[in-house]
């Protein structure tokens, strides 16, 4: 393809959003684009956005599905504003125009802008024909008909041929980013290896879209992106849910325990269940239970029987599991609970992300029932946090919750592939056969963990359960002082984890005017905002928390060094109130957003600037 007459623009990053009707294949086009970007050596971050319904009414704003990808040299978020919007129908234009950068490019499938379609999207006139899009670079492309012509050459019939329009659009984007189309061919070949007609028609459409964008009549400029500024190593693109599943598998392998997952499908956590169900060759046992309670209770049974037991869920599911979590606390069995947060309460907004389950993770059980709570900060971090959650749960013989969220769970980023042997070792306190001194609640006074005596082992028969037990011997007991002692042990055991997790770090200014505090999935946006202000010379630092319960032991030392502290989170203030409780000596300001959307970098900078 001759592209010598095309202008080349160097950019640090470019944000592309594919938007269309649910069922238009936007998630597929976006995923293929991200994977191609990864193969091209770019850093990336993705943000799938789709309605909760599978096929909502055709051509309506409610039915718009989108997939946003930020690619470039160093990328921490999926991007505030979109540089290039692909919109397959009027509804997807209406739903996404507000996020397109002024001066940005809009690629519209002109075939789908019929009067009926634009009226359904709320337009009085065809937005492609009036002057309403004058502030953007608008390209009206008959994508459906061009895709149809291309795909029919490969033997696809009318309907199938038209459906390759998403891939035609992807071809155009590949051309703009100057990506090697062969890499995408390779991805398509893997996806459709058993469906030759679909494969060939998609390849034809991809090529046709690429060539169309290359053609000089459009005089589109090409974007040249820097390669990722990241450490040397072997990389892949990964979503948070897959990374979570793999982190759990790594922990099971490293600890020598069989992995058991008891779970029930729920958006947006289901991909973890599906991924582990696929990894049977590693000996993973996956049980799809009859309900959420069955998921966690089977995991508790598995833990009693000696497995590294896991249950995965999202908000409403965690509500259902709470009674059983108390059982795991009092029986002092290891258990990993992964909660992929979504908009709540109740069913709330299943496909939208927020951080509103922190209170439940920390406090949502009857009695004094403390649990370890960790939070992942990005898709790739899910791997490490899942690994650590499992490690400390097993080593301290206590249940632990990992909080991720829908955006990182389903969004993806680059992941540097570690070697399992280089991960920290995991040594669960497994009781030895015929140990005459074995007692169910005898503790290692360093970790306060009791021993894990696995059924089938000789000489360790014992009984545990939901009733309070005596220290040491583990007899059923309602003795007042014993109950107080055991309650304190269970709390102290969780606090002991603080002695082993890393100290909290601060990026940017180490002491000064404003400390920005955040946790979990807001990492990318907050870190970018603080970095940009710090680069401007502002006295600002950032502490991003991944260890919530217990907090790192230097937390107060960090807080002391700043005049003002602001806590940013996607809820109404759950972490900030927890900090007010644990570290009451400081004054905390807070910035909250609860719209099912991530923070924008610019909005955060505006907030911080007002404090500086």
């Amino acid at each position: 393809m001759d592209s010598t007459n095309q202008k080349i623009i160097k950019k640090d990053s470019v944000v592309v959003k594919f938007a269309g009707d649910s069922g238009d294949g936007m998630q597929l086009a976006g995923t293929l684009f991200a994977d191609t970007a990864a193969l091209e050596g770019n850093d990336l971050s993705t943000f799938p956005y789709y309605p909760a319904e599978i096929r909502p009414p055709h051509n309506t704003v409610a039915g718009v599905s989108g997939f946003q990808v930020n690619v470039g040299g160093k990328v921490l978020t999926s991007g505030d504003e979109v540089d290039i919007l692909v919109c397959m129908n009027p509804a997807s234009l209406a739903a996404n125009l507000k996020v397109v950068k002024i001066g940005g490019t809009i690629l519209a499938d002109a075939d789908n802008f019929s009067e009926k379609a634009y009226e359904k999207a709320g337009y009085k006139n065809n937005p492609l024909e009036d002057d309403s899009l004058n502030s953007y670079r608008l390209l009206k492309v008959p994508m459906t008909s061009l895709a149809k012509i291309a795909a029919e050459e490969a033997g696809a019939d009318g309907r199938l041929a038209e459906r390759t329009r998403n891939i035609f659009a992807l071809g155009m984007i590949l051309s703009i980013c100057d990506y090697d189309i062969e890499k995408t061919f390779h991805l398509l070949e893997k996806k459709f290896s058993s469906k030759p007609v679909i494969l060939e028609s998609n390849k034809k459409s991809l090529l046709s879209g690429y060539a169309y964008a290359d053609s000089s009549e459009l005089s589109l400029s090409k974007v040249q992106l820097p390669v990722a500024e990241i450490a040397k190593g072997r990389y892949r693109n990964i979503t948070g849910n897959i990374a979570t599943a793999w982190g759990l598998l790594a922990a099971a392998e490293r600890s020598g325990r069989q992995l058991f997952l008891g779970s029930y499908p729920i958006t947006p956590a289901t991909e973890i269940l599906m991924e582990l169900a696929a990894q049977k060759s590693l000996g993973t046992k996956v049980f799809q239970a009859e309900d959420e309670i069955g998921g966690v209770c089977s995991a508790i049974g598995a833990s009693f029987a000696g497995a590294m037991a896991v249950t995965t869920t999202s908000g409403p599911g965690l509500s259902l599991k709470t009674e059983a979590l108390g059982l795991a606390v009092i029986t002092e069995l290891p258990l990993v609970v992964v909660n992929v947060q979504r908009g709540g309460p109740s069913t709330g907004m299943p496909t939208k992300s927020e951080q509103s389950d922190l209170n439940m993770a920390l406090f949502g059980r009857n009695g004094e029932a403390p649990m370890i709570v960790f939070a992942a900060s990005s898709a790739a971090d899910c791997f490490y946090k899942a690994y650590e959650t499992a490690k400390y749960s097993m080593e301290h013989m206590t249940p632990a919750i990992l909080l991720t969220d829908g955006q990182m769970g389903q969004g993806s980023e680059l992941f540097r592939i570690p070697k399992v042997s280089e991960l920290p070792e995991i040594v669960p306190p497994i009781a030895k056969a015929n140990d005459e001194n074995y007692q169910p609640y005898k503790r290692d006074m360093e970790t306060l963990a009791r021993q894990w005596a696995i059924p089938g082992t000789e000489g360790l028969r014992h009984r545990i359960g939901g009733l309070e037990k005596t220290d040491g011997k583990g007899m059923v007991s309602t003795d007042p002082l014993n109950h107080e002692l055991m309650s304190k042990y269970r709390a102290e055991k969780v606090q002991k984890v603080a002695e082993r997790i890393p100290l909290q770090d601060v990026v940017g200014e180490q002491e000064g005017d404003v400390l920005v505090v955040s946790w979990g999935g807001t990492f990318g946006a907050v870190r970018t905002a603080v970095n940009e202000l710090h680069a401007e010379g502002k006295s600002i630092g950032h502490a991003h928390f991944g260890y919530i319960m217990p907090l790192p032991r230097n937390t107060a030392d960090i807080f002391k060094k700043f005049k003002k502290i602001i806590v940013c989170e996607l809820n109404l203030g759950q972490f900030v109130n927890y900090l007010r409780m644990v570290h009451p000596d400081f004054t905390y300001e807070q910035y909250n957003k609860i719209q099912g959307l991530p923070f924008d970098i610019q909005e955060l900078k505006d907030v911080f600037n007002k404090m500086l």
Partner: protein
Amino acid sequence: MNLKDLSKIEKSEVPLTKEDFVSDQMVKWCAGCGAHAILASVANVFPEIGYKKENFCFISGIGCSSRFPYYVNTYGFHGIHGRANVIATGVKITNPHLSVWIVTGDGDSMAIGGNHFIHIVRRNLDVNIMLFNNQIYGLTKGQYSPTSPIGSVTKTSPFGTIEHPFEPGELVLGAQGTFFARTLDTRPKHMTEVMFEAARHDGTSVVEILQNCVIFNDKAHGAITSRDLRDDAQLMLQHGEPMLFGAEKNKGIKLGQMGLEVITIGEDGNTIDDVLVHDMYAKDPAIHLMLAKIKPPLYPMAFGVIRAAEFPTYNQLVEKQLVLAKESSNIKSVDDLLNSGDTWEI
């Protein structure tokens, strides 16, 4: 027939006695409670079943029955209300070599844990469920349960219950159960025989034990157990034997055109050849369902192993899939997995 070869299990090296299964904890059931007899039967039959003692595992939920694990010296787990069946599911999937025994009651498994009950039965996981049915909530002091007969006057039904009770056997067979037996806390020998059969069955064995609650539902099963009624009220099933009952063993069960019929041998031209012969291994559950349902006053109630049909177990299929996956996949370690698919060097 789906019998475990008990000669192939991991056996105790020394002969075990019932003393091996007595725990050090004080048994806190009421004097006269049927649970004492059930506990004694377990201690008697476990040595005979023959697993090494570390491979027995008891799991329970909540209720009077569910204190059971504390009173047997095996591995034991006292769970939460209604969840014994699914906790046990996790135990058995993790370690299929264990002999897993679930102790539950009519509240625990028929009400709050009804969902887990039907699903464990449907999956045919190889566990043994002892369902203590006293038709009352004992531990909360006398409220009606899902098996209380309609009209029962209890603390929460002062005007009598207005609910149709569950018949556990119907529920088991409706959920495609492969093993269902019924026994009585007043017949210790029969209990041990049935428990032994349950242990030999490869699949989910449900043993309903009609149990008396001396405090809140005394003579709960009086219409079946009382001295003057029991001969006509109890049909003691034996595989391969005709279904006879009555003091003279001259009454029998016949398969009529509209279902089961009670006949008297020598009357209306009925002979022993008209009496149904029990086939507990039959795969078709139709007659087993009829047997599970019959009860006085029109019929006797059936006791013994009603159904023991052979079907693959969940845990067998789990292991089979693991073996196949290991043979066919080139992902042998997590490092293989991490490096699978599209990766590149920077």
